[in-house]
């Protein structure tokens, strides 16, 4: 499979902005900070960048202009749709890899910038699209959809609150080793269980932390790997498929989500197997979504995610599958899947400091929940 598109590009550089609660920084300031770091990390200057992708919000036009980029190509993939077969949040990386593989561009700047939003999230009358089937029933937030998935998982498989809590408590333990993480003070299981409900059976610490921040990566032609100042991270396989219905509530396999299609797609494009993975960075917008990814990617059988994470042994540093080693969105902050990708690259480069997983040769980064799912298998 040496000719497949994934092998024609590498991740040559990574960058991250200041991350925090209500930083007061604008989207373009955050983005430029991450982008300049990623470009320099790749050993490039802005004039070398000829492609630009994102999944929206801080606009490509603003970033192109601010950095004086001379682009051959750029595209914004929209992840705000309730389903897409494009790799979900990580789709901008896949778009970049495809553009590089096609020969159209050589160095693509990929970014995701997230800012805390205030105000009324519930909308007004005359809703259409997927929201038509949610808002009239007081379903205003993805936490409600995730909570219903969790409730069903508990019913079908005996999954417990303590098992979901192991994901949150382990993430906080890892965040203590990451000076960029927003919440680093110790969290106990009692803290987790005692937190207020958001949407039963999910409580406050089942939900990720809204922050301001930006991550950028550079996707370059594979032949640039030899010139990279840092180890070029290789893309072994992408998972972008969405074969089921693009919906939170109509899927034939409910409560299984798009993660299952994306994961199966990814494994179909590589000879590597789940047991080859040394470190996993799996979307934790809500704890139950991480559990779904663990099962979908085959790290445990369907329904056994709770047992797998229980006590935080397997998923801790030194465990069989260290998970969300930077603290995850649950403790480090919600950068919409891109901090997961950044951490996967750091681990493969051996630059994760106190939280480094020794001998990390294969990593997976996955993002999305419900009808959104995309994943990347990455190697040294």
């Amino acid at each position, binding site marked *: 499979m040496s000719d497949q598109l994934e092998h024609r590009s590498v991740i040559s550089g990574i960058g991250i902005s200041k991350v925090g609660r209500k930083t007061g920084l604008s989207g373009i300031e955050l983005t430029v900070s991450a982008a300049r770091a990623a470009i320099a990390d790749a050993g490039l200057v802005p004039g070398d960048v000829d492609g630009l992708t994102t999944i929206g919000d801080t606009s490509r036009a603003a970033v192109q202009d601010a950095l004086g980029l001379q682009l051959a190509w750029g595209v914004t993939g929209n992840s705000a749709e309730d389903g897409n077969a494009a790799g979900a949040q990580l789709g901008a990386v896949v778009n970049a890899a495809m553009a590089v593989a096609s020969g159209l561009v050589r160095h693509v700047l990929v970014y995701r910038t997230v800012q805390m939003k205030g105000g*009324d999230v*519930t909308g007004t*009358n005359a809703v259409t699209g997927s929201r038509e*089937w949610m*808002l009239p*029933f007081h379903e205003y937030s993805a936490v*409600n959809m995730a909570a219903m998935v969790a409730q069903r998982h508990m019913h079908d498989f005996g999954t417990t609150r303590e098992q979901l809590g192991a994901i949150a408590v382990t993430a906080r333990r890892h965040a203590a080793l990451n000076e960029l993480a927003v919440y680093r003070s110790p969290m106990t299981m009692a803290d987790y269980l005692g937190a207020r*409900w958001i949407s*039963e059976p999910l409580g406050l610490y089942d939900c990720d932390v809204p922050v301001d921040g930006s991550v950028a990566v550079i996707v370059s032609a594979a032949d640039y790997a030899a010139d990279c100042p840092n180890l070029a991270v290789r893309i072994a396989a992408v998972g972008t498929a969405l074969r089921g219905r693009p919906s939170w*509530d109509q899927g034939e396999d409910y409560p299984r989500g798009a993660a299952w299609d994306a994961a199966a797609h990814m494994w179909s494009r590589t000879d590597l197997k789940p047991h080859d993975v040394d470190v996993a960075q799996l979307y934790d917008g809500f704890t139950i979504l991480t559990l779904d990814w663990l099962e979908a990617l085959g790290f445990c059988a369907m329904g056994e995610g709770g047992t797998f994470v229980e006590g935080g042994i397997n998923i801790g540093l030194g465990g069989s599958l260290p998970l969300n080693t930077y603290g995850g969105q649950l403790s480090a902050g919600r950068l919409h899947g891109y901090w997961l990708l950044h951490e996967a690259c750091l681990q493969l480069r051996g630059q994760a400091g106190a939280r480094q997983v020794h001998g990390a040769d294969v990593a997976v980064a996955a993002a999305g929940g419900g009808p959104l799912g995309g994943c990347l298998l990455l190697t040294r």
Partner: protein
Amino acid sequence: MSRVAPLITELNRHFWTGGAAGELKFLRCVDCGYYLHPPAPLCRKCFSDNIEVAAVSGRGHVVTFTVNHQQWRPGVEVPYNVALVELIEQPGLRLTTNIVGCSNEQIAIGMPVTVQFESAGDASDPVFVPLFRPL
């Protein structure tokens, strides 16, 4: 505060107004009998565009549910439940909805339910939101 109301179109009018007569209505493929939800102009199973509006029994069961505690919309009293109900007419034909007529503590996965309607939107041209109560 009242419920958010949908934009009514020719494609969804049957769904949101059927409750005026106490009927829960979906689009259904005349050729293969498949119910289409959300409403669509052709059958996603057999690709026929021979589509009719059909009333269903309004009976189903609770697939899953949540009790929401977070105040998302000003004026909506919390906690309240959100549930996923599957109708008896077709596996996978589901509505995200609310359970009424019992306490949140009494809701259980598998519980049989039946539809009832609550009006919303413009009082002069209301829509009828399908909710479910224990059967």
